[in-house]
């Protein structure tokens, strides 16, 4: 019973989030900086280059890294203040075990022994697959490779998955189906060469801020900007064509645009004929999406759909960028395919200024899924169900293909399996489902049902509250390895400091668990360099081929784009040149997309659409960023965005508390009344915990192919909940919203 041992308030008092505002030693500290480390930001998939200033084994500040070509010194506020996660009062420096009275320190060796004993007991009693592993995509590729291999050979369980399942998998699946390969089609250097930039479901300014400059560089050359979003996000404010669509109607919008391209003959006939198959079926699938039908479904005026088709169709070059806004749906894969169809219809692949790219959200979203911690993939983006792929990996790993488990359950499915009694124990690293998974109440019930739950983390997250055992792991700046960015560029992460106290580098913990389980023979590594060298060997000849990369090359060449099969290969920034796609016949697939409405519909009881997303100052579940004072100051608590027409109808003034309820849960937060959101939609950002999770409301329905949850659309109702009277403590933290006083 992994029930939290103390009250929420007691846990927060002891383990945070507390707010760190100043560098180690304070602003007046005059300790000499003794090294400056070139590395990358720990947060999003842009992976901006950054220099960390180090003094006395602590990161004390940053400097822009002007020479790193992706961002040339540019950073968002999270990157600027990222160093404040180090030397933090909440940092776990010993392993902890849960007791009746709370968490108590436990020696590292004892923690390993107890975890190994529980793994054995659960697997002996209920079978190998009853113990699962859930990992994350903020880890280096070396660690993600290790997590997958540890699950499959160390533990022998099929059930390993990762939090990229909540992020990029719809795009991954669609790219693979249509183009034969799961990677953004281009490096970002093609964006400024585009004559039209189409952004679908991506709040670029807040979620991929550095990409803003790439788009402006295109616009400085005269490019037009189309943005499709239910909200006028900061970049959308300046768009040439804004498509303010109803949540969950993306593929109808794209289908209608495809129809318009056909009707106006804005097609690349030569490209379609010679380099694609399936065009006629794709067009037939959208035949019923006339302008008026599309206006009815999407809520976007027909004139703007025409304008978008003209801008996209007539330009000589164009890129389409998409992200979670179209991907987080029960038809997320179909939405991405509908975008790819627009790219294929206009021949926008394999040449300068052209491409259809997903903007990967997590630091190592790309590397994290392609090197073997995804439930259905083996290293090199190989398919776990493909006998040839299994044989290659098994040989490298010194086992028979029969020793490799088959595909396991995805992240969300694992939580359902806990409730069903099929999964009894779990090892988790680098993810916080109590904030990040949909339907928080269901997640809590599942965690409470686990017989044994071990977590590796550097702070005690809200999920860690439910752990039986917590290993103090490593921060980004305490270890080294590589990550693969949104561009498909593999870059080197360099260590700046060593882990404090009894904290260990994450891979050391995994190797010690394998030793305890008697499976150490599969993991003959002295460190991440050995793991990387194995990745090079294992991925040789695979789709995601890293064989030609070395840590030294990655540093010297500012990263390399896979595939990079040999040490003299320059890497592949732009895919599909020729054009030649990654399917055996070299052709891309148009896939028919019939628009499917969202799994949950609005009705009289829940009459409004809810969509969720991020704010610039927080990252994902906030385990790190809710502990960094200057970032918390910027946007301290979730606000419920709604249009003044809705606010008027429900008698809600800006700043009033509003209760948002769905079929799964409810949340009370202050209203932000703005004209920048559709009048039938409310928006809540999702980074917070302890009753402030937007995911209390969201729908855990999954896309049937990608298994991504439908975070971006569900049905809710609104009720006014009184005036907002925030109470702020001396750290500037909002400790109550005043609800208690009224109760």
């Amino acid at each position: 019973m992994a029930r939290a041992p103390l009250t929420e308030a007691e846990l927060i008092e002891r383990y945070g989030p507390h707010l760190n505002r100043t560098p180690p030693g304070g602003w007046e500290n005059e300790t000499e900086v003794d090294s400056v480390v070139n590395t990358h930001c720990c947060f999003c998939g842009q992976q901006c280059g950054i220099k960390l200033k180090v003094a006395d084994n602590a990161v004390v500040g940053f400097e822009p890294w002007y020479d790193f070509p992706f961002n040339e010194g540019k950073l968002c506020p999270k990157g600027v203040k990222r160093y404040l996660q180090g030397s933090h009062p909440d940092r776990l420096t010993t392993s902890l075990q849960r007791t009746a009275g709370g968490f108590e320190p436990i020696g590292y060796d004892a923690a390993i022994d107890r975890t190994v004993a529980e793994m054995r007991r659960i697997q002996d009693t209920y079978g190998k697959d009853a113990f699962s592993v859930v990992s994350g995509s903020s880890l280096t590729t070396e660690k993600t490779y290790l997590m997958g291999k540890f699950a499959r050979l160390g533990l022998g369980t099929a059930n390993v998955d990762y939090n990229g399942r909540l992020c990029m998998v719809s795009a991954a699946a669609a790219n693979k189906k249509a183009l034969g390969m799961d990677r953004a089609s281009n490096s970002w250097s093609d964006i400024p060469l585009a004559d039209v930039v189409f952004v679908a479901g991506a709040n670029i300014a807040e979620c991929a801020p550095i990409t803003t400059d790439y788009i402006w560089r295109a616009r400085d050359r005269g490019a037009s900007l189309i943005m499709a979003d239910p909200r006028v996000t900061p970049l959308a404010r300046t768009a040439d064509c804004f498509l303010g669509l109803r949540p969950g109607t993306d593929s109808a919008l794209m289908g209608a645009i495809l129809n318009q391209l056909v009707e106006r003959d804005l097609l690349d006939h030569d490209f379609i004929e010679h380099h694609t198959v399936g065009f006629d079926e794709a067009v037939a699938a959208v035949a019923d999406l006339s302008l008026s039908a599309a206006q009815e479904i999407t809520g976007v005026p027909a004139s703007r759909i025409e304008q978008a088709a003209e801008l996209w169709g007539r330009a000589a070059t164009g890129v389409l960028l998409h992200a979670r806004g179209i991907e987080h749906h029960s038809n997320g894969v179909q939405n991405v395919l509908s975008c790819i169809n627009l790219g294929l219809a206009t021949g926008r692949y394999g040449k300068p200024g052209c491409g259809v790219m997903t903007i990967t959200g997590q630091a190592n979203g790309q590397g994290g899924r392609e090197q073997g911690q995804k439930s259905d993939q083996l290293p090199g983006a190989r398919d776990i169900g493909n006998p040839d792929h299994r044989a290659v990996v098994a040989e490298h790993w010194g086992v028979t293909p029969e020793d490799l488990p088959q595909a396991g359950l995805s992240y969300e499915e694992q939580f359902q399996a806990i409730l069903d009694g099929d999964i009894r124990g779990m090892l988790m690293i680098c993810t916080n489902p109590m904030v990040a998974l949909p339907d928080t109440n269901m997640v809590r019930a599942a965690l409470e049902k686990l017989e044994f739950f071990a977590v590796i983390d550097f702070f005690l997250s809200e999920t860690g509250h439910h752990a039986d055992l917590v290993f103090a792991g490593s921060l980004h700046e305490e270890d080294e390895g590589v990550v693969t960015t949104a561009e498909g560029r593999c870059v080197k992460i360099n260590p700046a400091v060593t882990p404090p106290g009894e904290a260990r580098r994450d891979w050391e913990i995994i190797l010690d668990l394998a030793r305890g389980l008697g499976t150490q023979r599969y993991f003959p590594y002295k460190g991440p360099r050995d793991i990387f060298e194995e990745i090079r060997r294992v991925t040789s000849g695979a789709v995601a081929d890293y064989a030609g990369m070395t840590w030294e090359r990655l540093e010297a060449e500012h990263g390399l784009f896979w595939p990079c099969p040999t040490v003299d290969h320059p890497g592949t920034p732009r895919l599909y040149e020729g054009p030649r796609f990654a399917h055996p016949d070299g052709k891309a697939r148009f896939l028919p997309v019939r628009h499917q409405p969202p799994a949950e519909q609005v009705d009289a009881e829940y009459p409004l659409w809810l969509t969720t997303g991020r704010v610039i100052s927080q990252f994902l579940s906030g385990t790190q960023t809710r502990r960094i004072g200057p970032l918390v100051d910027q946007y301290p608590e979730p606000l419920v965005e709604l249009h003044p027409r809705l606010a008027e109808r429900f008698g809600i003034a800006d700043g009033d508390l509003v209760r948002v309820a769905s079929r799964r849960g409810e949340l009370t937060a202050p209203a932000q009344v703005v004209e920048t959101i559709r009048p039938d939609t409310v928006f809540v950002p999702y980074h917070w915990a302890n009753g402030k999770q937007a995911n209390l409301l969201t729908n855990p329905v999954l896309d049937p192919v990608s298994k991504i949850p439908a975070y971006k659309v569900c049905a809710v109702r609104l009720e006014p909940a009184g005036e907002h009277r925030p109470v702020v403590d001396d750290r500037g933290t909002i400790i109550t919203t005043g609800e208690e006083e009224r109760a």
Partner: protein
Amino acid sequence: MSELEDFFGRSEHAGVGDRIYVLDQSRCIGCNACVQACSECETHGGRSMMHLETVDRATSTQTAPMVCMHCDDPTCAEVCPADAIKKTEDGVVQSAEKSRCIGCSNCVIACPFGVPEYVPEFDMMMKCNMCYDRTSVGSEPMCTSVCPSQALWFGTPEEFYATRQGSLSNEFQFGNRTVTTRVHTVVHEPGPLDAFLGRSSQPSVVSDPFGIDEIGLPEVAR
């Protein structure tokens, strides 16, 4: 190359030289990277000299950054009774000198751009000095370095016109007084003509982003 230049990483310029600071507020995405980066400077640690205003969140996501404009004839210096505000030979108006500033706030009241702030904690005025520690040795201000949208930009006018749209302007009229500044703003011509609509494509969405005037309010069940 001095050790400092090496540390900051850019040294092709001897000093501030002919580089100018450019504010293009239309590009601002309100991310606060400039504010957060400014607060990292050890000379005013934890405190930002950047101003970043949200124009009217109820109707728009427009935000507006503001720095010291570094006037050619700085009013703040003119009205300072303690002669605490100096302008460097290369045109950067320094923040108040700690030893001279008497905290009278004359400059705060007089600045036509509303930039200097009186800081009670130190009983003195503080403002942006265009990161003189960085710019005087050839590097860039911290805010322009980090700005993700390059709404804040630093370089020569030639570089600007070679890569960016809009015209630079550094002349501001306050009543009868014309103020010229080291910092330039960007004046935008009407945007590229949209061939399909037959009108300028800028600005497009601010007035009616969801087309309510065109197709009415979306239905919401009662």
